[in-house]
């Protein structure tokens, strides 16, 4: 795991001291709210519907047991005993007091954490594949490159006041577990025919009110040129991106309005001018960072653990959890364990301070002291011995975190919605809870297979509804909560933006409508087809007819 060097430590501590001064000046009135707002946002502090909200970065989603314990302590001391994992490998605290935030940040700095660049119009926390370093299909550990990008983008003077926020994600696999194609810049690590490392660069992806799949601006940027290429993209965006309209200020609009070919030419011209500058990443620096992400001291194990196989045979619940939540590891005898935060008790992504402490202990005991956060608001233990899976499952069950629903209908991405968010039109969490209750039967969930349901409480799309196989978007209809359904989206390697199926449903009708769509899928699916596959095969029309039969009657 990456550890702060002297520079990182000094910088973060200085930033805490700086923000302490800014808060003091705000409280004394030297700074107005208008002046203070951009300063607090640079430090991840929002003022939401009910209170301040602090968003803490978990760079590329990797953190330690010690850091998790600190988050638990912060949840107890400064919040109300909870934290909330987001879709960008951050954790949010919903109730800190402004006057406490400097001390909170100082405590975070003690464990090498911060809230810098988790908000505001700058390059945000860089995200990566949560299975990095563990999954068999990767060509490199994406965290190494995410860390290199983090160092370059942190407090980059030219890109601190962009036209709008800017998000970067890194993956090293053909499977997209980081919704890379919907980032301002998405990076896929590739090897060329000569075995050299480089990056396939996607630009202009995004969700929000104008969802767009990114486009490939360069198929292979050599590793040593990554930072100069990123700098060229950012510079062209910063100079030419729109600043007249907040809703047209993201790079996706620049790509759309300029055209990919023209924009690529501009980027390449800029790149040519800076390629052979100090931005070249020297091999020794890559290797220096690589050391931080060296594989843990794996034991040499057998491919098949008899004890594990026996437990699976004897215990159907354990077997189901293994089928649902456990993924093959590249190291023989180990496994990747997904820990669902979509349980019966709490809003999606929420976790109690006690659960955090317990998970910290489990991470130390079972996964080399390492935890990952995923963009689907779940957690991962990346390196667990197969022989210890049963014990881990049992202990996770004791703290309510053994829900075997990864990728299933109840494993929803859900924004905080109007229960917390100042921008939302409708609530999201209660709809998710009602859907979870409707599909509480795990046998039914497994029968439905992979089904990505995502809910946003407004057009800003924090709940990724555009890329849900089924997406729900909350809309305000004369003061009442309504939900518009989109179908056919995907945030994975088969990326697609969902299409609106028809008029919105009231809050009381929306769960029945979702069930109707799922029932129809079950009736017409072919063997092995996911909901998304069936939808793509038959198209929107049959689903529409099923959902709005009265329209057919009217036409007849």
């Amino acid at each position, binding site marked *: 795991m990456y550890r702060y060097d002297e520079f990182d430590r000094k910088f973060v501590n200085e930033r805490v001291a700086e923000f302490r001064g800014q808060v003091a000046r705000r409280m004394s009135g030297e700074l107005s709210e208008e002046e203070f707002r951009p300063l607090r946002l640079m430090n991840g502090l929002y003022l939401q519907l009910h209170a301040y909200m602090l968003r803490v970065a978990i760079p590329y989603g990797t953190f330690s047991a010690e850091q998790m314990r600190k988050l638990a302590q912060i949840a107890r001391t400064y919040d*109300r005993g909870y934290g909330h994992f987001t879709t960008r490998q951050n954790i949010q605290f919903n109730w800190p007091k402004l006057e406490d935030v400097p001390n909170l940040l100082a405590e975070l700095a003690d464990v090498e954490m911060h809230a810098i660049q988790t908000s505001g119009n700058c390059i945000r926390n860089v995200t990566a594949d949560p299975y990095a370093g563990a999954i068999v299909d990767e060509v490199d550990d994406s965290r190494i490159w995410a860390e290199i990008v983090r160092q370059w983008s942190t407090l980059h003077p030219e890109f601190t006041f962009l036209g709008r926020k800017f998000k970067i994600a890194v993956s090293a696999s053909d499977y997209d577990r980081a919704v890379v194609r919907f980032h301002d810049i998405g990076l896929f690590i590739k090897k060329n025919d000569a075995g050299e490392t480089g990056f396939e660069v996607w630009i202009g992806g995004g969700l929000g009110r104008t969802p767009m799949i990114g486009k490939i601006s360069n198929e292979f940027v050599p590793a040593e040129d990554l930072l100069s290429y990123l700098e060229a993209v950012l510079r062209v965006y910063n100079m030419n991106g729109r600043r007249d309209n907040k809703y047209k200020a993201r790079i996706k609009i620049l790509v759309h309005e300029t055209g990919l070919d023209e924009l690529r030419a501009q980027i390449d011209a800029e790149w040519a001018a800076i390629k052979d500058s100090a931005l070249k990443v020297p091999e020794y620096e890559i290797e220096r960072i690589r050391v931080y992400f060296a594989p843990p001291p794996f034991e040499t194990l057998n491919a098949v653990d008899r004890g594990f196989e026996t437990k699976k045979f004897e215990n159907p619940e354990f077997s189901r959890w293994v089928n649902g939540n456990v993924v093959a590891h590249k190291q023989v005898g180990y496994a990747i364990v997904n820990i669902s935060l979509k349980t019966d008790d709490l809003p999606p992504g929420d976790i109690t301070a006690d659960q955090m402490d317990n998970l910290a202990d489990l991470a130390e005991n079972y996964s080399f002291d390492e935890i990952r956060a995923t963009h689907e608001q779940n957690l991962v233990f990346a390196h667990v011995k197969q022989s210890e899976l049963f014990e881990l499952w049992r202990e996770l069950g004791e703290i309510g975190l053994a829900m075997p629903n990864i990728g299933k209908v109840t494993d929803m991405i859900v924004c905080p919605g109007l229960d917390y968010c100042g921008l939302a039109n409708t609530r999201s969490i209660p709809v998710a809870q009602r859907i979870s209750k409707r599909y509480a039967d795990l046998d039914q969930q497994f029968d439905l297979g992979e089904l990505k349901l995502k809910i946003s409480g407004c057009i800003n799309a924090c709940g990724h509804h555009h890329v849900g196989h089924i997406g729900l978007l909350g809309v305000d209809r004369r003061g009442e909560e309504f939900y518009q359904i989109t179908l056919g989206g995907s945030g994975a390697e088969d990326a697609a933006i969902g299409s609106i199926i028809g008029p919105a449903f009231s809050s009381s009708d929306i769960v029945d409508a979702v069930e109707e769509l799922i029932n129809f899928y079950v009736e017409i699916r072919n063997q092995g087809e996911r909901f998304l596959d069936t939808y793509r095969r038959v198209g929107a029309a049959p689903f529409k007819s099923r959902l709005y039969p009265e329209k057919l009657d009217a036409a007849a």
Partner: protein
Amino acid sequence: MEHHVITANRLNDGLVVFMGEDGCWENSILDAQVLETDETLKICLASANTAEQAQIVVGPYEIEVIENDKGEFRPLRFRERIRAYGPTTHADFATQDVPGHLTHLDDVSPVYFNGVG
């Protein structure tokens, strides 16, 4: 004129507050001063802006309220009801000093708490 109360977030802790009878800022909307004329609304908004300049509150604004059959004034808009009474998903987080905080949305849409309708 419709009835209004003035609301804001308190600067030091960010919590939702309402302007009370004496111009103090109260945690509960039940303690809010209900404004019945354009003139009092204007005067109180000016007073709220002064409170903002004095670093007491952030972003004051008026909300429309309606009287229920118990004589209590509640926000007209759905958003303002959630803001006044707290998240509908955590009983512990809803405003403690407002009785019946989990039923406050009954007349708008069903309230669900931890998945239980």
